C-alpha cells in the first residue's frame, strides 16, 4: 500500500514538471541557454595560453586548471584548508581512541579472486592517478582528481583486504599526516616562491604569481615539445595530489576502525 502511494507521488511529480515546463515555454518565460559566453571568460580563455604576449599569460592550456591555480589560486588554497580543518575536526572528535593491530589480517576481507584483481587494479590505478596529476595542466585532470582517484582506490583496498593490511604495510595515520603536511608545506612554499625570488633578485613579486606580470618579471616555466608551459601549476598539482590523497587516507583509517575497539 505504502509503495503504491510512493509511485503515484512520483508520477504526479514528473507530470507536474512536464506541465510546468511546457506552460513556461508556451508563455516564453524561462532560461535560454546562451549562444555566447561571458566576456570575462573570453579574457580568461584568451590569456590562459596566449603565447604572443607572455607578460599577460598563464601558460596553462587546460583553462579550468589555469583558473583554479592561477586566477583563483587563493580560493583553491583555502578550499584545501577547509578539507584540512574537516580532518582536524574529525581527529578531534575521535581523539582518545586507540587502534590495535590484528596480525592474522590475511584471513580477513573478501575472496581471493577479488583480492588478486584489486592488486592489479591498484597498480593500474596508481599509474593512472600519477599521470592525471602530472598532465593536469595539459589534459583534463589535476591534483584533486588524481588525489581523489588514488584515495578511492585505497578505500577499495581497505574494504577488500581490511584496514589491518594497510596498517601492517606501513601506511599508518601518522605517516599520512606527515605526507599531508609535506603536501601542504609544498603548496605554501610554492605560492611564496615568487616573493622569495623577488627578495633575492630585488624586484617585485606577487603571492601566487605564476608567469611574468607587468610589475614583476618572475615566473617558473619549462619547455616541452617546443611549447612553453607553466612549471608552477605542475608543482602545485603534485603537492595538491599528495595532500588530498593523504588527507583521505587519514579519514579512511579513522573511519574503518572496528566498533569493538572504539568501545574501549
Amino acid at each position: 500500500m505504502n509503495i503504491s502511494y510512493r509511485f503515484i507521488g512520483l508520477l504526479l511529480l514528473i507530470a507536474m514538471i512536464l506541465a510546468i515546463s511546457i506552460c513556461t515555454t508556451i508563455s516564453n518565460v524561462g532560461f535560454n541557454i546562451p549562444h555566447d559566453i561571458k566576456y570575462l571568460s573570453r579574457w580568461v580563455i584568451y590569456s590562459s595560453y596566449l603565447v604572443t604576449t607572455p607578460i599577460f599569460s598563464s601558460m596553462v592550456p587546460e583553462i579550468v586548471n589555469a583558473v583554479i591555480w592561477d586566477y583563483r589560486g587563493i580560493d583553491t588554497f583555502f578550499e584545501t584548508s577547509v578539507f584540512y580543518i574537516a580532518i582536524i575536526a574529525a581527529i578531534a572528535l575521535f581523539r582518545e581512541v586507540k587502534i590495535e593491530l590484528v596480525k592474522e589480517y590475511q584471513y580477513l576481507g573478501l575472496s581471493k579472486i577479488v583480492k588478486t584483481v584489486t592488486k592489479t587494479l591498484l597498480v593500474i590505478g596508481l599509474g593512472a592517478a600519477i599521470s592525471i596529476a602530472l598532465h593536469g595542466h595539459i589534459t583534463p585532470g589535476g591534483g584533486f582528481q588524481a588525489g581523489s582517484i588514488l584515495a578511492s582506490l585505497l578505500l577499495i583496498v581497505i574494504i577488500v583486504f581490511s584496514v589491518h593490511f594497510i596498517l601492517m604495510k606501513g601506511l599508518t595515520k601518522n605517516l599520512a599526516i606527515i605526507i599531508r603536511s609535506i603536501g601542504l608545506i609544498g603548496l605554501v612554499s610554492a605560492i611564496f616562491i615568487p616573493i622569495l625570488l623577488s627578495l633575492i633578485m630585488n624586484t617585485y613579486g606577487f603571492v601566487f604569481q605564476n608567469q611574468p606580470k607587468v610589475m614583476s618579471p618572475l615566473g617558473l616555466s619549462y619547455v616541452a615539445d617546443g611549447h612553453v608551459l607553466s612549471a608552477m601549476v605542475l608543482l602545485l598539482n603534485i603537492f595538491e595530489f599528495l595532500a588530498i590523497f593523504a588527507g583521505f587516507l587519514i579519514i579512511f583509517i579513522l573511519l574503518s576502525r572496528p566498533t569493538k575497539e572504539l568501545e574501549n
Partner: protein
Amino acid sequence: MYISIILGSLPILIMALAFLLPVLSIFIKRKVVFDICFLFIAFLSLILSAEILFSVVGTQEYLLYPFGGWPPPLGIVYVADYFSATLATTISFVILTVAMYTVWYTRHLEGYVWLYTLILALEAGLLGVIYSGDIFNLYVMLEVVAISSYGLVAFYTFRRRPLASAARYSILGIMFLTFYFLAVVIIYSSLGTLNIGDLALKLRPQIIHLQNYTIISAYSSEYTNTIAEILEETALPLSIALLISIWVFTFISALFPNHFWLPDAHSEAPTPASAILSGLVVKVGVYASIRFLYTIFGPNTAFVHIRELLLNVLMLLGIISSLFASIMMALQDDSKRMLAYSTIVNIGFIYMGISMGSVMGLASAIYHLINHAIGKALIFISIGLLIRASRTRNLYGMAGIGRQYPLVTFIIIMSSLHLIGLPPFGGFFSKLLLYQSFIEKGALVPALTVVIASAIVAYGYFKLIEAIWHTPPISTITISRRPIPILSGISMVIMTASILMLGFFAPIIIDSVNAIAHEIVNEYTNYIEAISKLATILTPKGVGLP
C-alpha cells in the same frame, strides 16, 4: 591605492602556521611549545592587521592586493578600506586576548593542539572574509569560518549536548551556505563578474559612467553601453540572489527566525570558543550584509524597491529578535546560555541600525558591533573562570563564588554595565547613537525597543551579579580559592581597559565611525576607483582581444 604584501599574505600565513601545529604534535609533547607558538601567531596577526589599519588611516588610501598579479575582475583581490581594516584589527585583538585565556584553560585538557589549530583557522577565515573583495572568495572563507565553528562547538565529544547542538548547527549551516553558492552562481550568470567593485560598478549605470572605468569594464562587460538593458532583463534573478544571500547572512549572524541554533551551540562550546563565536563569528554575517546592502546593491542602484523592502523586513526582524531574546535571556538559569541570548539581542540592535539606511544608523551599528565584540568576549572569559572554580554553569550553583574572586567579579560587573549600556562605558554611547539615529528619522518603535530591551537585559545581568556576589554559597559545594592565572588576568585587564577607552574616547570614536559609515553609504565610488586604478596598473599596454 597601495599594493600591500602584508594584506595579501596575512590570512595565508596564519593558515599555514596553523597547519604546522598538528605536525609538531607528532614529534613534540611539551605543551609550553604550543602555547608559545599559539600566542606568537595570534600576536603576529594583531601586529600585521594593526599595521594595515595604520597605513590605511595614515595614507588616506585603500590598501589592495591582487593575487597572482592579475587585474581585478580576472583575479581575486583583497581590499582593506577603513571598515575592514578596523574590523580586522578588532578581530585580531579579541582573538589574542582570548588566546591568552585559552592557554590557561587548556592546561589539563587532552587535545589542546586541535583547539589551538581550530581557533587559528577560524581567525584566518574571519580575516579572509573581512578582507576579501570577491563574492566567491567570500563563500570559501565563510566555509572556513563555518567548519572551524562546527569543530569548536563539537569539541567536547564525550558530552551529549555539544554533539547534538553541533549536529543541528552544522546541518543547517551546510544547507544555508550551499544556498549562498547558488546566489553567487545567479549573480555570475546575470552580470558576468564576481568582483565586488565590479558588481558595484555595473549595478549603477545611471550614476557612474562606465567610460570613466574603461579598463575594468573592458574585462567584464559585454555591452558597455547597454548595461541598463541587461539590468532590466536580469532584475528578477538578481533580486532573488540578493534575498537568498541576505537570508543566509541572517542565519550566520542569528537574527530572529534563524536564531534557534545559537543558544545551544554557543553555550556548549569550550569557553574560549564561546567567546570567539559569540563575539566575532556572528559579526561576519553583519559585515557581509553591509557589503551586500550598501556596497553592491547600494541605495543608488536599480534595486531600490527590493532593498527598501528588505531593510524594512530586517528592521522588523531586528525588533522581534531583540525583544524576544531579551525576555528569553531574563528567564535563563544557565549563565553561558544567558550570555548567548544576549548576543541575539545585540545582533537585533545592530541589524536595526543597519536597516535605517542612514549614515548615523550605520555608524551606530558599526560602533555597537565593536563594543559588543570586545564586551561579550570579556564577559565570557571572566564567567569561564568562575565556572571553572564552581564547576557548574547554573546560576544557583555559582552562588557566592564571586566573593572568592573579587577582581573577576568587578570585571564581570564592569562588562555587564558595558553590555547593558550604562555610562561611562562604550556600550552606552553606541546605544545612544542608535537611539539618536532612530529619533532623527522619527522611528519611535525601534527607539522604544532599544530602551525596553536594554531594561530587560539589565534585569538578566543584575540577576547574574546578584547570584555570584550577594547570594550566600550553597554549603554542599566546597569552594577552594585559587589564584587568578597571570596571563588570563592580564588579558581581562587589557580588555576592561579597552571597553573603558571605548567609552572615554567616545567623541573621537563616533567621529571616525561616522567617517566609516559615510564612506560606505555615500562615497562608494572610492571602492570602485581603487579597484579600477589597480586594474589599470596591472594591465599591460596594448593587450586586447583579437
